[in-house]
């Protein structure tokens, strides 16, 4: 009895320390962004100061600089616009595509679905060189339209895969009944299947939007003018003047952009993960 008592206490200590250590290690950079955002430069750039505390009064100067004198707000706007357009294109192509694979293509639908899913594994770093020429030939270079065109190629495969699983879980009888009532197959899809699939469709919306905010390589390659940047490239590349890093406003920009995206993504994470596991988990 004594021994097992020690064991449970020991197990608890191990459990808590594992959680505490990992949480601190993983969340630390974001905590560090908060600190840098509100520190005065004189405090930030004095090596002797204890970096964990405020040695001078907290300040809003970095936020003022970020919003007043950089293109940060504009980058946020560009990103939101591109995100919205990519979401629309993704839905228009992926929703019907996934339904076709789930219901209409019979046995090879599943195989085709996995094939589509695998194209999600093709990284931007394999295709950015030829795509930069394609974008240039279409006259889209240096505009946000270049990424509006290219990003759906990253969002559609995974979205089809997610939605396919979703549509399969809907009972077939639902559409059969609707078709008996006089709707065509396509009519049943639009009127019956799409409305009850709203949560799956919402997952695709969030996935596509967050992917747009996270992408770096294509935006870096296709767009060079500062004012047309996406937020993920604008902050790390254009908030740095030559070799001078404005760490305070740089960290503020990272924080303001990442936290909302992270919270949004986190809400839907379990659904994305269900898609990632390729059916290895039932």
């Amino acid at each position, binding site marked *: 009895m004594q021994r097992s008592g020690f064991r449970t206490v020991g197990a608890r200590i191990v*459990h808590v320390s*594992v*959680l505490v250590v*990992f949480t601190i290690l*993983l*969340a630390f*950079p974001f905590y*560090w*962004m908060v600190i840098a955002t509100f520190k005065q430069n004189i405090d930030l750039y004095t*090596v002797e100061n204890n970096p964990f505390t405020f040695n001078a009064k907290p300040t809003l100067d970095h936020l003022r600089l970020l919003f007043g004198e950089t293109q940060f707000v504009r980058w946020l706007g560009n990103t939101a616009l591109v995100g919205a357009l990519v979401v629309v294109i993704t839905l228009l*192509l*992926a929703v*019907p*595509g996934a*339904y*076709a*694979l789930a*219901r*209409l*293509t019979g046995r090879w639908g599943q195989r085709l679905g*996995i094939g589509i899913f695998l194209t999600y*594994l*093709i*990284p931007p*770093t*394999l295709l950015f*060189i*030829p795509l*930069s020429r394609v974008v240039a030939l279409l006259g889209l270079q240096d505009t946000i339209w270049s990424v509006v065109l*290219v990003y759906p*190629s990253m969002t*559609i495969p995974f979205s089809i895969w997610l939605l396919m699983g979703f549509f399969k879980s809907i009972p077939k009888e639902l559409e059969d009944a609707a078709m008996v009532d006089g709707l065509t*197959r396509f009519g049943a899809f639009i009127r019956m299947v799409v409305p009850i699939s709203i949560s799956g469709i919402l997952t695709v919306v969030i996935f596509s939007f*967050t992917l747009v*905010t*996270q992408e*770096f390589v294509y935006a870096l*390659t296709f767009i060079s003018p500062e004012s047309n940047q996406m*937020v*993920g490239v604008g*902050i*790390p590349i254009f908030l740095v003047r030559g070799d001078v*890093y404005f*760490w305070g406003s*740089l960290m503020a*920009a990272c924080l303001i*952009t*990442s936290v909302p*995206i*992270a*919270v949004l*993504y986190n809400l839907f*994470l*379990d659904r994305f*993960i269900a898609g*990632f596991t*390729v*059916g*290895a*988990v039932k």
Partner: protein
Amino acid sequence: MTNRQLGAVMFAPAVLFIILLIGFPFVLAVLYAFSDARIGSTGFHLVGLENFRSILQSPSFRKALQNSIVFTVCAQAIVIVCSTILSMALEKPFRARGLVRLLILLPWVAPVSLGTIGWKWILDSIYSVITWVLIWLHFYKPYSAPMWLGEPRLAMASVILVHCWRLIPFSTVIMLAGRSAIPKEIPEAASIDGAGFWRTLFHITIPMMTPIISVALLFGIVFTFTDMTVVYILTAGGPFDSTQTLPSLAFATGVQGSDLAAGAAISLFLVPVLVAVAYFMLRVAHRAEVV
């Protein structure tokens, strides 16, 4: 219209899009790799294996290939061990689990370029918090601490560290999903039969988790091997190409250096790894279908 025809009509736009924006550029990449294409010149000749011959001889390519492999292997080894431990800790219910989960997931769900710039500040040559702590603990004298991103070995370790930081959360949630699928009765029965914690772990839990660990590993391999963002922001391949990877070298050569042909040829070295991952992924998916 039959189901089949309707299916084809509904599926065609998506497939067409994927072919035009993934299939066609891929063919173009292969074509470039065998040509002398450059940004700004319209001439275009096939030159056979010339590009491959010259990149295979270049020391920076060899270093990049070696780094890509080293970074991927080291990062994935650490990620799999850490995420197995972390997923076990997160599985048991405890107070504030939702908040802890969000904090742990931040590195994966926040944009990678922004998390990496956060690390660049943490690893700064003068104002690094790590340096400050080490000086405070008297491991180093002031102004003699190492430059984390300025010395080749430390810079390589830093890149691996950031990859681990970013992928541990992702791997952990995949494993959590896998663990929730293991019936609780089996490990419980084993422990009633007298199997201790470690025996249950190595003989029951880990073997049952093999499919899900392999999924986490396969994605992890693709995400580290093909990544350019972390290296580009953290070190830009430096110091002296010591942290250059295949993707970052392809960018430096093909985009910044205007040599499309050589850049495309370097990128193509990613393909064997992608094909291998796709093959194993198909096996996992196939097994899941059969069971």
